[in-house]
């Protein structure tokens, strides 16, 4: 309702405003990250919003011009830090495309396992935080326990929990130990029940449904125009998934479906992410079975045979001449880098994470640009919340899975 009924007589010349300006400012309790929305409210309804980002701009693209290719991996970790292995693998795939390195199948399957675990980890945070923003804290506490299991698997493989720096150009730094596979089996055994329990708490929960259905809806045409990708686009009805369209790392060998929603509102995004977690679980099980089929020599392969880009084993560096020379060349940057530009995209937790790398033959990239999905679809936020109430705006913000590190780079 747009009439303004004035019960109080304001004195002549005082300010009369129809709307209130509210600053949903960089520090807000949704614990998502730092971005700001300046909202014009008419009572409880949002008339317009303006978003500001850049509160955690760390100048990744400029830092990357200073570092050789293998030192950029820790930077990519900190893009979407909830699913950092996907960023790492995407960067390694970009480098391998530039350098012309072919990875063996076992490496591809191991990468798929790690990437799908990261996707589960990312969607778990997003969905449980949507629950927290509607008032349900229990779901968050339940699933954080199982994210700890995923962190333990990462720790076995690479030593770190969150910002993993997993893998090298051409493969992994060490073979997966038996402990890693035992932990993976434990996760695969326990996790389906937990996901089912999580769905029981939320999917047909009347309060949750009434809070989320209808809020933040976007049509497929507008979503494509805004450059949406990932679960947000799939909830709007477009089945675009980089793993199917431009398969990388042997995704074409796996059998999975892409869940697609209808209206693109918060509830559809929640359901799409839940269903994607089931699909990720099935992909991990298929990959694990495929890995167990490798026997003998093949079961020890964990990197491609590229001495020019993959550091040799330390025992060889101290005993063999050739390994010493390659070690020196790689660290000192005397390896020939091809000139050219390459664009490689992977399906991150939020959509198409792209790496545009221009190399001029030198040790460091000439230009590296990250195509960050969060930055691109956050532009649509004012359109998504226009006309809705303030509390729905908070739920929309969390259901879009905005990660500040990825937004600002």
């Amino acid at each position, binding site marked *: 309702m747009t009439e303004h009924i004035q019960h109080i007589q304001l004195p002549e010349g005082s300010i009369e405003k129809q709307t209130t300006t509210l600053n949903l400012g960089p520090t807000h309790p949704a614990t998502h990250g730092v971005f700001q929305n300046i909202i014009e409210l008419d009572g409880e309804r949002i008339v317009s919003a303006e978003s500001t980002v850049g509160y955690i701009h760390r100048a990744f693209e400029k830092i990357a011009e200073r570092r050789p290719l293998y030192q950029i991996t820790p930077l990519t970790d900190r893009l979407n830090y909830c699913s950092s292995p996907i960023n790492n693998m995407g960067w390694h795939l970009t480098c391998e495309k530039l350098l012309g390195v072919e990875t063996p199948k076992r490496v591809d399957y191991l990468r798929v396992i790690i990437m799908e675990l990261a996707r589960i980890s990312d969607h778990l945070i997003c969905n449980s935080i949507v629950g927290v923003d509607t008032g349900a804290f229990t779901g968050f506490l339940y699933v954080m326990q199982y994210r700890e299991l995923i962190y333990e698997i990462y720790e076995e493989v690479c030593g770190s929990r969150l910002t993993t720096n997993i893998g090298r150009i051409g493969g992994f730094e060490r073979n997966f130990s038996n402990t890693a596979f035992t932990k993976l089996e434990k996760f695969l055994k326990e996790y389906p029940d937990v996901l089912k329990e999580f769905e029981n708490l939320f999917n047909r929960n009347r309060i949750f449904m009434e809070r989320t259905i209808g809020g933040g809806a976007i049509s497929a045409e507008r979503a494509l125009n805004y450059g949406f990708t990932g679960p947000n686009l799939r909830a709007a009805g477009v089945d675009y998934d980089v793993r199917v369209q431009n398969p990388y790392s042997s995704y074409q060998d796996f059998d999975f479906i892409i869940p697609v929603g209808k209206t693109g509102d918060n509830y559809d995004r929640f359901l799409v992410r839940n269903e994607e977690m089931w699909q990720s679980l099935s992909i991990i099980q298929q990959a694990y079975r495929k890995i167990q089929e490798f026997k003998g020599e093949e079961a020890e392969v964990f990197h491609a045979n590229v001495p020019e880009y993959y550091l040799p084993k330390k025992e060889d560096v101290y005993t063999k001449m050739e390994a010493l020379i390659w070690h020196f060349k790689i660290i000192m940057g005397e390896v020939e880098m091809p000139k050219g530009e390459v*664009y490689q995209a992977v399906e991150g937790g939020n959509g198409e994470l792209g790496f545009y790398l221009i190399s001029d033959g030198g040790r460091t990239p000439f230009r590296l640009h990250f195509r960050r999905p969060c930055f691109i679809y956050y532009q649509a936020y004012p359109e998504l919340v226009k006309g809705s109430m303030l509390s729905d705006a908070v739920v929309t913000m969390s259901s879009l899975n905005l990660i500040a590190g990825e937004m600002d780079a």
Partner: protein
Amino acid sequence: MALNNSIIQEKLVAQFGEEMFSFSEQYGMLCLEAPTEQNLKVLQFLYDEPTLAFRFLTDLCAVHDPEKPGKEICVVYHLHNLIENVRIRLKVYTSVADPKVFTATRLFEAANWMERETYDFYGVQFVGHPNLKRVLNVDEMDYFPLRKEYPLEDQTRIDKDDQMFGRG
């Protein structure tokens, strides 16, 4: 017949003429360079033509190469045809003294913030942009940091010793 790089090349040459573009193929992706004033016309043609249908703007960024006098800043568009699954890269060059490029926001809403980021980093003025101001850096910044002549580190910091990092 499925869309591939040679068909795209033929259609573009048929519409705009032989001398306008220079084509190259990098790692399977067709790259075309267009004159700066024609960037909107090319984008509109790639969008409207029913067989080409590049309706998704994947990425918009810029590259600064001080070695090319008069064409230092290159604005790069990555477009994607989702139905045929074909990607293409369009480049327009502009000089660093007066970098003006027409904005693509009327065609793609996604270009809005991407052009603001390009302005923030390189100083490219997008003519016709609804809200061209800095998006990632502080508003008071008076230089364009990603140009090659500026250093990475904040030169006023006192706790880190450049000598120790090999950049004395």
